[in-house]
């Protein structure tokens, strides 16, 4: 099986320095945030990789890097064998963009409030020259709306006339307009209520099955991730700390952070499962701890963890960045 998307040592840093004048007067140094710091993974065609982590771990930055909304500081993203950064700058840009699309978190902010749905969903079709005339455009828009469970009459409505879940369906219809192969979904259901979230997740799964879509699914909700994904990558402060099959990861979490995240989920079945209390909070990404960035919160950290940054190594079919696991201490 070949990978449709391959990410190699992807890194992105943002300049968050104070303005030039302040730096000169107050003698402050330049400051950088390493939002994504050496991330590698691949996604097979027709599968879903989920990236999960707490706020500030860089998961949304990875999503934006993958569709070319940010330019990587280092590393490469290959889509179907092509490196996307140079391709998006070259003559093939439009063709590539047609094949990868994105769904954003907030359906209130990602739809133009002054446009009718017909225009919102139809824009990619006209932009990419996929329809020849207005009649064909209308047919395609109706077809797209049907595929996400909306009706033809919704075409003449504005975004504010829809509920949150329906808006997210409009976003999905728009993303599907160019018949992409790869969809990057950045927290597509986080802004939605649970009953509506279920509707959207069901639609996304149905579409994946009928169109063979490949998803990168970003979320902070492990239960949702468990429902939608085939593979799961756990991120912490810009790095992937564990990457495994869904079944393996949830049955046998290896990295202390993954265990902690799983432990922190409220037990809705009330099975009386024992939970270890989690200590501490995510450190400031401006000034991440040396060595393994999780060491201040890790119950298994030793001197090596304080100094040496663990690499993501494959152990028993799971890729994991942890000295304790690699040394067999855990």
């Amino acid at each position, binding site marked *: 099986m070949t990978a449709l998307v391959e990410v190699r040592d992807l890194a992105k840093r943002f300049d968050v320095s104070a303005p030039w004048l302040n730096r000169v007067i107050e003698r402050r140094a330049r400051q950088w945030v390493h939002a994504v710091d050496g991330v590698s993974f691949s996604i097979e065609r027709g599968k879903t990789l989920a990236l999960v982590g*707490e*706020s500030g771990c860089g998961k949304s930055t990875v999503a934006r890097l993958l569709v070319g909304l940010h330019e990587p500081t280092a590393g490469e993203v290959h889509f179907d064998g092509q490196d996307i950064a140079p391709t998006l700058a070259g003559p093939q840009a439009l063709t590539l963009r047609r094949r990868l699309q994105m769904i954003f978190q907030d359906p209130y902010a990602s739809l133009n409030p002054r446009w009718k749905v017909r225009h919102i969903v139809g824009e990619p079709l006209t932009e990419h020259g996929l329809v020849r005339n207005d009649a064909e455009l209308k047919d395609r828009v109706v077809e797209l709306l049907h595929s996400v469970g909306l009706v033809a009459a919704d075409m003449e409505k504005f975004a504010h006339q829809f*509920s*949150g*879940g*329906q808006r997210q369906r409009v976003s999905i219809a728009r993303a599907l307009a160019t018949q992409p192969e790869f969809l990057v979904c950045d927290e597509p259901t986080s802004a939605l*209520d*649970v*009953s*509506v*979230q*279920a*509707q959207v*997740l*069901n639609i996304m*799964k149905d579409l994946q099955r009928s169109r063979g879509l490949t998803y990168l699914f970003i979320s*902070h*909700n*492990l*239960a*949702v991730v*468990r*429902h939608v994904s085939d593979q799961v990558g756990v991120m912490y402060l810009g790095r992937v700390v564990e990457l495994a099959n869904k079944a393996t990861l*949830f049955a046998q979490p290896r990295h202390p952070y993954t265990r*902690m*995240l799983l*432990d*922190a*989920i*409220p*037990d*809705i*079945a*009330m*099975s009386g499962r024992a*939970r270890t*209390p*989690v*200590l501490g*909070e*995510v450190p400031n990404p401006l000034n991440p701890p040396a060595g393994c960035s999780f060491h201040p919160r890790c119950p298994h950290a030793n001197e090596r963890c304080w100094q040496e940054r663990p690499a993501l190594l494959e152990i028993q079919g799971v890729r994991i960045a942890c000295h304790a696991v690699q040394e067999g201490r855990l």
Partner: protein
Amino acid sequence: MTAPLLEVKNLRVEFPSRHGTLLALDDISFEIAPGEILGVVGESGAGKSLTGAAIIGLLDPPGRVAAGEIRFEGRRIDNLPYEEMRKLRGRHIGAIFQDPLTSLNPLYTVGRQLTETIRTHLPLNAAQARERAIALLQETGISVAAERIDQYPHQFSGGMRQRVVIALALAANPKLIVADEPTTALDVSVQAQIISLLKRLCRDHGAAVMLVTHDMGVIAETCDRVAVMYAGRVAEIGPVQAVIHAPAHPYTAGLMGAIPAMDEDRERLLQIDGAMPRLTAIPPGCAFNPRCPRVMNRCRSERPDLLHAGATRAACWLHDAGAPP
């Protein structure tokens, strides 16, 4: 049975607007016993936060209590004058809000906000109040509290700020705490810490809690009883175990089925089609009838009251024992 600490009876909250009066809460009734944790759960717009706001007397105008009553320790509090309510709030009823950054004053140190609250409600001098503030901060798990008390809110992380807010709510040893989505703005790992802290402290202080949240998981872990709200009404109320494992109202059942589970694999989630009605267009009869998989003719015209259904009470005609089958 002991007398309830808080009693809400047929509460009705209205928002007069240009296009007519919006009925935001319609005939809400429930009780909270001393020391009990009642969860109030529902999707956005169900009226759960509004119920909390009505209890602590902080309804945003033009919202107003149009009918019904709220009793605290047997005394009616929904019609108290502003000054009297202000004395009650903080002293006997504490509040915790969603966003810890907006509920703390950024210009005052944490210590000043705590001692001010303590001295408003308790007869202590400045030194005693400060001592109590430090003790409270320590209780909420803030290390080196004696130093951190002189810091400003921006010097605290999100989870730490929420701890300060909890300390503030507990400052005068209130008997009831209204916590409105206290963990929604926090990361999952911190969320678990705050919930267990809130639970432990309220037990230690003997405070009852009304916990408003949209997260069924938090409810399952924390509460004794839960009220499920839908379109400004209580759809079901009962012991947490019963509501989660044997929901009596089709809406509760749908809500539970829509949550992706951690311990079972389902290809599709149970889905309730449609969305909650807007306040301007609440259907006649049972508000849930257009989305209900088990709707009957009666549901479209007659509104059900809370009826006994096993261990819980549900506002659903399915549980009307007197009706012909």
